[in-house]
């Protein structure tokens, strides 16, 4: 029944077209169908197609269930689209096809057959799989690098730990003998010798602090995280109270704003507040009226906690050095410190897979920000639980 013109038009299409009647007999097909699957299945009943034409379900490569073929579904009145893997004995090569089928209806909307379009998507599938393969490869490489980095980190941390640990004993001896010298022999020492003795003691005090903080930094890295839903405000409050003696006699105003809950290790996050708030106390030392603010804010669409002070601040040029071990932006005579505190803060936040950064301006204060998981929730959302 096909007119020559219609057949010419159909044959010029790149996509295959098949029209079947209710019995599954082929009414119309075009040359593209023959190209795709070797020959038009004119002599086959629909339920023979999967076996005879080599139609497979694309994921598990099982023979395509005949009743699930798009034509069969269209004959039941359903429009559908699916992908089929074809490996027909006639062409002896595999291709992927995308099949779209619609029911064919008469004037009274009765289904009288089905129209099916068949498109070769082999190239697209191959590209997709290539992308997936590259992606997987990249991911496994990232995983491997991360594991290597973590191992190196661990090794460095245990090295740091054992060095700091072993330094404690000789340091203890120097401290002890210096003190015995001071207490039992001071009157016999020349003033200059007494001076040197004092310098030795200052040096050992500083070294003691360094060793303790290094040990702590290494310990932070080695300890497993104990994640819990934690209310941050009481922690910050406790830290503020504990640090109060360190600024006795000064005018220091601590404004604790609304914080929230976070999924974190309470002990470690307490340390973060300890370092940041004691830093703020230290670097506002020259202010008549020191103001330290602790609160929650949104930066770049992300909720974070901040600790802000009106202290001496720092030059943003050096912001990159702020969190490095032993890096200091101030002379020790001006502000005493070991340069390990902020490195510890960073290590703790990194362990929580959060981010920490700082903003400052010379003589106009500094603000430290950090993110933790779970900050996004409304404060108090968990309290009702």
């Amino acid at each position: 029944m096909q007119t020559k013109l219609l057949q010419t038009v159909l044959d010029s299409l790149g996509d295959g077209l098949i029209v079947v009647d209710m019995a599954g007999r082929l009414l119309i097909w075009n040359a593209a169908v023959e190209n795709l699957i070797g020959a038009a299945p004119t002599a086959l009943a629909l339920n023979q197609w999967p076996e005879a034409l080599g139609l497979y379900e694309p994921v598990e490569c099982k023979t395509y269930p005949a009743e699930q073929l798009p034509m069969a579904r269209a004959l039941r009145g359903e429009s559908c689209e699916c992908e089929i893997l074809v490996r027909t004995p006639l062409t002896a090569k595999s291709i992927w096809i995308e099949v779209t089928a619609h029911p064919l209806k008469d004037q009274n909307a009765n289904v009288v057959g089905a129209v099916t379009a068949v498109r070769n998507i082999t190239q697209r599938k191959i590209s997709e799989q290539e992308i997936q393969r590259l992606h997987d490869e990249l991911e496994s490489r990232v995983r491997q690098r991360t594991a290597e980095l973590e191992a190196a980190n661990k090794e460095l941390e245990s090295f740091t730990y054992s060095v700091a640990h072993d330094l404690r004993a000789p340091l203890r001896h120097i401290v002890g003998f210096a003190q015995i010298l001071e207490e039992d022999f001071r009157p016999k020492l020349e003033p200059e010798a007494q001076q040197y003795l004092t310098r030795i003691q200052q040096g050992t005090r500083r070294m003691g602090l360094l060793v303790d903080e290094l040990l702590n930094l290494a310990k932070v890295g080695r300890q497993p995280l104990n994640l819990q839903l934690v209310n941050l405000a009481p922690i910050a409050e406790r830290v503020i109270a504990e640090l109060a003696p360190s600024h006795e006699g000064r005018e220091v105003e601590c404004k604790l704003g609304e914080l929230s809950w976070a999924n974190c290790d309470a002990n470690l996050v307490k340390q973060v507040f300890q370092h940041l708030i004691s830093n703020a106390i230290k670097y506002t030392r020259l202010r008549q009226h020191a103001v330290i603010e602790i609160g929650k804010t949104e930066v770049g669409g992300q909720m974070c906690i901040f600790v802000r002070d009106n202290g001496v601040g720092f030059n943003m040029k050096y912001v990159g050095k702020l969190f490095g071990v032993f890096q200091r932006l101030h002379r020790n005579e001006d502000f005493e410190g070991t340069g390990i505190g902020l490195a510890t803060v960073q290590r703790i936040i990194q362990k929580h897979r959060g981010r920490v950064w700082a903003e400052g301006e010379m003589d106009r204060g500094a603000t430290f920000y950090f993110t933790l998981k779970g900050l996004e929730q409304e404060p108090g959302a968990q309290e009702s639980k």
Partner: protein
Amino acid sequence: MKNQNMSPAEVLLVDDNPADLDLARDLLIANEHPRQVSAVTDGEDAVAFLRREGRFTSAQRPDLIILDLNLPRKNGWQVLEEVKADPKLRSTPVVIFSTSEAPRDIGNCYRLGANSYVRKPGNLQDFMAVIQSIGQFWFQNACFPRREEQ
């Protein structure tokens, strides 16, 4: 300088005399030694507390146990024996705090693994001094194994 990261200790007092218990607790807290002093008044509660059973499921595992010997329901030796036989509790130091001076009582405590035996003095002045000394030694100087925070 004391290690700033040393978290204050937790202690469990086990004593069936409420007045002694109260006094000891107040003295320990007043001297700012431990962070928290929990108290139970019989041996079965002591074991349940340590194992976080029954009404003690949210109890903090203590760093130190101060244990009287003459206790209702389960006596101090039994508690001591259970603590020292439990791999999870064994490393927690136990100080026996009892009025008994009987060599046999003291000897049995050490044999069962008590870490220390302190005689509970009769008069208040001595009682206070002894508690003070327990606090000083254990909370200002001794180290405890890390307890799992919860």
